[in-house]
């Protein structure tokens, strides 16, 4: 098509050259598309098409007794008025509000400390703090299940020394803190690496200048380093927010040792999973998933909008 364009329009030297450059660019772009097409194919087959199919499913209602029929947005109306779904959403929102600050603080402090150290011990410590992230989430959750166990875990022994009875971290009152600990343990190291990488990207001459101006270590950390890595912090926050709103693996695994505290609608994702695979309501489960998607989208968009000056992601 671009070739016919050239033939048809008689043109002088300058514009002709420009047009030819555009033609070259276009054919280059065509090759570009060719190169990304394998990815696009996989992307479409395993993400776009299933998403559309799930959305289509979510517009239908299938009940055990009456079969399937088109109901439009009824499932969504039901989801947003379903106390179990709303209970799950409220849990993950509350959980995010506590978890994200805690794990950001932990990872930020560790990264700042490690950034000032350069010996072999620091490198070893960095690796060790990162290791929990390398443990698969399922294995990590099972491990904590054993650590929390009143019979096998160390809690009973530790509390026994002081003659006290050990609390069960997965009892209804403690499950929030119990899970908080597991997730922070698993993810703080990963966020630490991101922050650490961002810190290493800062030109050290900035510190030199600050030190000449009389800033001490703490001032450099708080006044110089933290503001300069704010975009990395925002990135982490968005990752953490999206991940936490979709909270699934840890509670799903720990359900098998604390079925009472972690019920079938503990988080929206668990609710969707149970609804689909345990109660065979695939249509309503699709609607729940999309409703959760909407919550995540609104949440992260809102957050990015509020931090647009800091993030540099606009």
């Amino acid at each position, binding site marked *: 098509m671009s070739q016919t364009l050239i033939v048809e329009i008689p043109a002088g030297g300058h514009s002709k050259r420009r047009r030819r450059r555009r033609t070259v660019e276009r054919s280059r772009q065509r090759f570009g598309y060719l190169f990304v097409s394998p990815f696009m194919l996989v992307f479409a087959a395993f993400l776009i098409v299933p998403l559309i199919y799930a959305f289509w499913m979510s517009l239908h209602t299938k*009940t*055990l*007794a*009456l079969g399937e029929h088109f109901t439009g947005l009824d499932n969504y109306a039901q989801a947003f008025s379903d106390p179990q779904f709303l209970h799950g959403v409220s849990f993950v929102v509350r959980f995010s509000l506590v978890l994200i600050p805690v794990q950001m603080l932990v990872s930020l402090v560790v990264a700042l400390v490690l950034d000032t150290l350069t010996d072999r011990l620091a490198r070893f410590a960095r690796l060790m703090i990162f290791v929990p992230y390398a443990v*698969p*989430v*399922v294995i990590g959750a099972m491990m904590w299940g*054993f650590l929390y*166990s*009143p*019979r*096998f875990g160390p809690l009973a022994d530790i509390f026994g020394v002081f003659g006290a009875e050990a609390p069960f971290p997965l009892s*209804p009152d403690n499950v929030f803190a119990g899970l908080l600990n597991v997730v922070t343990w698993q993810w703080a190291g*990963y966020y630490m*690496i*991101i922050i650490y*990488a*961002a810190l*290493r*990207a*800062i*030109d050290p001459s900035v510190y030199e200048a600050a030190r000449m101006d009389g800033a001490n270590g703490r001032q450099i950390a708080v006044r110089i380093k933290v503001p300069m890595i704010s975009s990395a912090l925002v*990135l982490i926050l968005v*990752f953490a927010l999206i*991940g936490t709103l*979709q909270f*699934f*693996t840890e509670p*799903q695994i720990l359900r*098998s*040792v*604390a*079925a*009472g*505290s972690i*019920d*079938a609608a503990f988080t929206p994702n668990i609710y969707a*999973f*149970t609804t689909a*695979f*345990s*109660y*065979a309501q*695939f249509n309503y489960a699709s609607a729940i998933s999309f409703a959760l998607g909407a919550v995540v989208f609104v949440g992260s968009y809102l957050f990015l909008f509020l931090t647009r000056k800091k993030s540099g992601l606009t």
Partner: protein
Amino acid sequence: MRSIRGSRSHRRGWVAAGISAVMVVTALTACSGGGTTEGTGSTESAAADGGGSGGCTNEIKVPGAEQVTVWAWYPAFEGVVDLFNTTHSDVQICWSNAGQGNDEYTKFSTTIEAGTGAPDVIMLETEVLPSFIIRDGLMDLTPYGADEVKQNYSPGVWADHSNGDGVYAIPVDGGPMGMLYRQDIFDAAGISVPTTWDEFAVAAQQLKDSGSDVMLTDFMTNGRAYLQALFAQAGSEPYIFDGATPTDVQINLNDDGTKKVLNYWLDLVDKGLVATDDGFTTDYNTKLVSGGYAVYLAAAWGPGYLAGLEGADPNAVWRAAPLPQWDASNPVQVNWGGSAFAVTSQAKNPEAAALVAKEIFGTEEAWTIGIEQGALFPLWLPILESDYFRDLAYPFFGGQKINQDVFLEASAGYAGFTFSPFQNFAYDKLTEQVFAAVQGEKDGNQAADDLQQQVVDYATSQGFTVN
């Protein structure tokens, strides 16, 4: 120099960002790990569906014969499969273990929704049959000669596997309930074996008063079928559901029997006489065999479960006795668990599949393996009524003939039970309500009433007419 350095660290920032992006994708994939694992099982079975012995756990003895794919998780099942395959030249079983209980049902449920990927024959617990029948996942076996084997099962058992006019599964094993107890702990505390629930409560108090830190037993809030069976013993009949009118269901989860049993146990819990640990966890298993509880209220498959657990107390002396009764003059026998073979509606050759379902546990040789290696309780009358089974002495129980003493009577007295077509949901809610009651959030009556309300609401939302 400076500019080069600057650009390098800039690039390093991008690399870091790129790496972190990749990691996020990995993390998100990891989050859906549960689903992926489920999927793997189906893929395996799909491979098995493709024929050839490549996808089978067992060895195909007659390569040219018609193959029937089977999902099952019976212990020592491989021997039974091999026996079938060596004695049949026209049909061969291709067996794979797609997980135990809910793990398997999740996969099966997905294959029903997908319309492909199900095995030809599937092992199902009796309690989930209505849930799969109503989704048209199972085939009526009446046209494939189910009646030929009907006389091999007691009428109550046969009724449990029928729905309306159809027969949807061939029974395999049952779970009549009894009481397994630690003779040594009982003797040390001077407790005699309770025969009624009143005596059981007294025994619990005695055990505590003796200064022992052993609990008499565990009231598992996640007991599901176990709780349902205990309620049924006091006359609870929670569901009336018949395949002839599949959109009608009667729900009665808060009747007097349920409330009586629930309040009885909550009282023991309040007095600190029984444990309330979640069942089937590693903690629970260990406590079970290492002297955490003195009594295991068990189904007939319980001894096999117990014997298979690790960390057992080598000095434990286990004996079996009948389940305590509410009214000793009018004993009621109940059942916990039990399973059957059903033919799925996706079976390629229903005739061959039905043959497998009918014959796999239809010989004495197969049952010898099932009983002696798998510790199954047979529902197949020729073996159930045999002298061999009655007189079988169990070394685990110090040579006690537990079938004669306990389980045969329990099995003979069992009158059948109707489950709902949304049993999984009802069980989840049962767990939540009983847990809330044990936590002291509500009393037993309130828990039963709330359960009734939740299940009725659910059934209504699923299009059932609830009477």
